[in-house]
């Protein structure tokens, strides 16, 4: 760095095809269409084909990765309006226990419990966190970190809902294939829906709140109401992930409130590139299989895992997605001065 007497300098330019295809009117050729669509369609198709190729074990890992992907999406959406949460486990556990209760005590079928747990969970979590929504930054993070711990201790101590044994023998979700494709499709629906929302004017207001909430207030927008809406949506996604997982394993226990479910989505988003949603999914798709692959190392698994995570964040602080997107859209060349 700092070599100022270089005779050449690096120049970074958008590829012509990007400039053309950014504007809808200019899409003239199949090549332009392919340029726009292939980065969206190819990964989706690849993910849908993978379970057919992979064995049963790695398909299970994919389901797991998809669930974490949903949690990471939920985190990223909340962060996009300036609410940094350390408690995705609250959403996950809430969804899991609601399903557990509905299925175990009332015997409701999956068709009812899944949507009911998603919506009720969303409402309950929003009500729980609404009082602290005025807190900013680290205070909000602290409260969200503590609440899931509170729930897990309460359940263990009071022996409520099966105490530390949890609720077992829940209705299975359906066949292996069905649940795999169901969660994958849900993940992509969430991903594209959130990207759509954040691109609309509605999402624009949320991003502006993260930038400067006072300026948004001076634009006559009730920032607390907007934050509550975002919180609800994010909580619904998290609860859905928890509810699905609960049926998938036919079990709910206090471990649904575990710290893993709070930290892993955060790590995945940081690795993949925050603020894009795609980054959150890519991050989960890297981290979850990685942590499985490292099982061979036995006790040192977590240590290796942490080193890889730290290393990748130092090398690519912008996130994997931003890096790939830049390489795809721009090229660099040396220019004579």
């Amino acid at each position, binding site marked *: *760095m*700092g*070599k*100022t*007497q*270089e005779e050449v*300098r*690096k*120049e*970074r*330019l958008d590829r012509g095809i990007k400039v053309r295809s950014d504007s809808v009117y200019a899409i003239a050729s199949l090549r332009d269409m392919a340029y726009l669509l292939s980065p969206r369609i190819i990964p989706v198709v690849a993910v849908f084909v993978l379970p057919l190729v992979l064995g049963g074990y790695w398909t299970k890992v994919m389901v797991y990765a998809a669930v974490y992907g949903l949690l990471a999406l939920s985190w990223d959406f909340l962060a996009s309006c300036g609410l940094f949460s350390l408690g995705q486990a609250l959403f996950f556990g809430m969804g899991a226990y609601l399903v557990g209760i509905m299925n175990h005590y009332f015997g409701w079928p999956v068709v009812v419990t899944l949507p009911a747990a998603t919506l009720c969970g969303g409402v309950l979590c929003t009500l729980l966190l609404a009082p602290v929504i005025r807190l900013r930054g680290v205070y909000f993070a602290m409260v969200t970190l503590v609440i899931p711990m509170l729930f897990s201790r309460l359940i263990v101590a009071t022996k409520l809902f099966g105490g530390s044994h949890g609720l077992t023998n829940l209705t299975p979700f359906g066949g292996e294939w069905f649940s795999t494709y169901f969660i994958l499709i849900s993940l992509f629906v969430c991903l594209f829906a959130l990207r759509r929302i954040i691109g*609309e*004017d*509605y999402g*624009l*207001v949320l*991003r*502006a709140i993260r*930038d*400067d909430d*006072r*300026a*948004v*207030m*001076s*634009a*006559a*927008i*009730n*920032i607390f109401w907007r934050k509550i809406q975002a919180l609800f949506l994010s909580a619904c996604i998290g609860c859905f992930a928890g509810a699905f997982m609960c049926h998938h394993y036919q079990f709910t226990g206090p471990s649904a409130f575990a710290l893993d479910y709070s930290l892993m989505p955060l790590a995945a988003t940081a690795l993949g590139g925050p603020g894009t949603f795609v980054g959150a999914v890519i991050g989960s798709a890297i981290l979850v299989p990685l942590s499985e692959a490292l099982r061979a190392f036995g006790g040192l698994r977590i240590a290796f895992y942490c080193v890889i995570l730290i290393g990748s964040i130092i090398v690519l*602080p*912008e996130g994997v997605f*931003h*890096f790939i997107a*830049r390489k795809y859209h721009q090229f660099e060349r040396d220019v004579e*001065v």
Partner: protein
Amino acid sequence: MEEDIILRVERLHKSFGGVVAAYDISFDLRKGEFLGLIGPNGSGKTTLVNLITGFVRPDEGRVLFKSRDVTGMMPYGIAELGIARTFQMVRMFYNLPAYKNVIIPLCSTRVKRRRGGRLGERDDMAIELLDEYGFERDSMVPYKMANSLPHGYLKRLDLARAMALRPEVLLLDELFSGMSMSEVAATLPMLERLNKEGVSIIMVEHRLKELFRVANRVIVLNFGAKIAEGLPEEVMKTDKVKAAYLGSESTAEGVSPAEAGGAPGAGVEKRSDERMLEVRDLSVYYENALAINSLNLEVCRGEMVAVLGSNSGGKTTLMNTVSGLILDMQKKARRRGGERINVYGRIHFRGRDVTVMGPGERVRMGLVLCRERHPVFRDSSVLENLRIAGNSRKGREVKQLIESIFETFSHLRRLSKRRGGLLSGGEQQMLAIGMALMTSPALLLLDEPLLGLSPMLQQTVAGAMKNISKRGMTLLVAEQFARPLLPVIDRGYVIENGILVLSGTRDELEGDPEVRASYLGV
């Protein structure tokens, strides 16, 4: 008569931790009126704007909008009723393109109610609105990211964002601060037009000449209290106002005048021929745009040199390059994939080539920059701020340095226990310069030290710079306000669009017709 009054302020009172920011303020704003709000730095003007718009809750008193009590309402509720504002320190959504900034207020229920904003329409509305405020529809400007826009554009963007609400009352908090003369000249007619269209305006401003051209009535604040009210010309004649605002009182209010402190000859003999700083063929590119074009500049020991130029002329880039901050920006840009910065040319400091030296090392060599609107530590007192800045010095040295800073800025001594966040804009500026002085630099770089100061404070801060220079320090000052600065400098450079257009001694610059026209407004 009562129906004419659109906004009524009744006995507002507010204090922050013992500092009275508003003391028993009452006034009425009539429909269609253009009210000027003036006063020295720290007199409570911004606090009054915050009290009216709900960003700060008053301890006592009421604010009535169209006879409706709005005291204690949230800022968005008040904005919803039709009271819009701009911010003294621009608060834009920097990660959004300019026109998207204007879409935010267009999403409010106030605008929705008025014209059922359908999808996609808002983009057009925003572009159209920005076109009225100097963001040409057919240029790239409305689509640029807000963080890449120059200050003057951001100020107008803030105005456009406020006007997107179609407010009935508009509060402008130092809209003109940091704008160049031509930008002010372009903005004034916009305000006049708005006022004619029926918007009642309260304008906080230091640029009195421009304000008096448009204001119907003026209120003068000092120490949080209203000290005068009336027609602009009449108000300025009252003794109280003269004393508070326009000069003579510099000893009482701000900094000791230029004559006090270092008597002539007390410091080092001025103007040796030893070259302190030498900049050769400096060019800086942001991505592919040229910010500075093969610039040559030198500063000799003991000199005070000014770099004059309008906004976005390349002054800040020059200061960042000389201080080495640009290397950090470069590194960050490389890692985060931001705008790529390229620097060519050589910088010599005290005979050593520092072109590739990091900013920290340059500070250790005595090359210190006080940035534009340099931040102070808001939660630490003035004294603590100075101590923090001098943490690399020994205990006794720190005491001496602080003492000499308090001598230069006598005002700071009285505020030494006050928290940085409670200081007014001008006081913070003085503290920031003081903090730079704590490193006892050999060459002090000041980037826009006069930005946002009242004319009187500009004079006193310029006087203080003269004092510092008399004590043997070398100064390089980037500024757009030539009027207060020219009398105190030795030499100056004028840069425009990154190109050096003029250089010379003070007298040469003062005599130059171009400088007189564009910087002195003669």
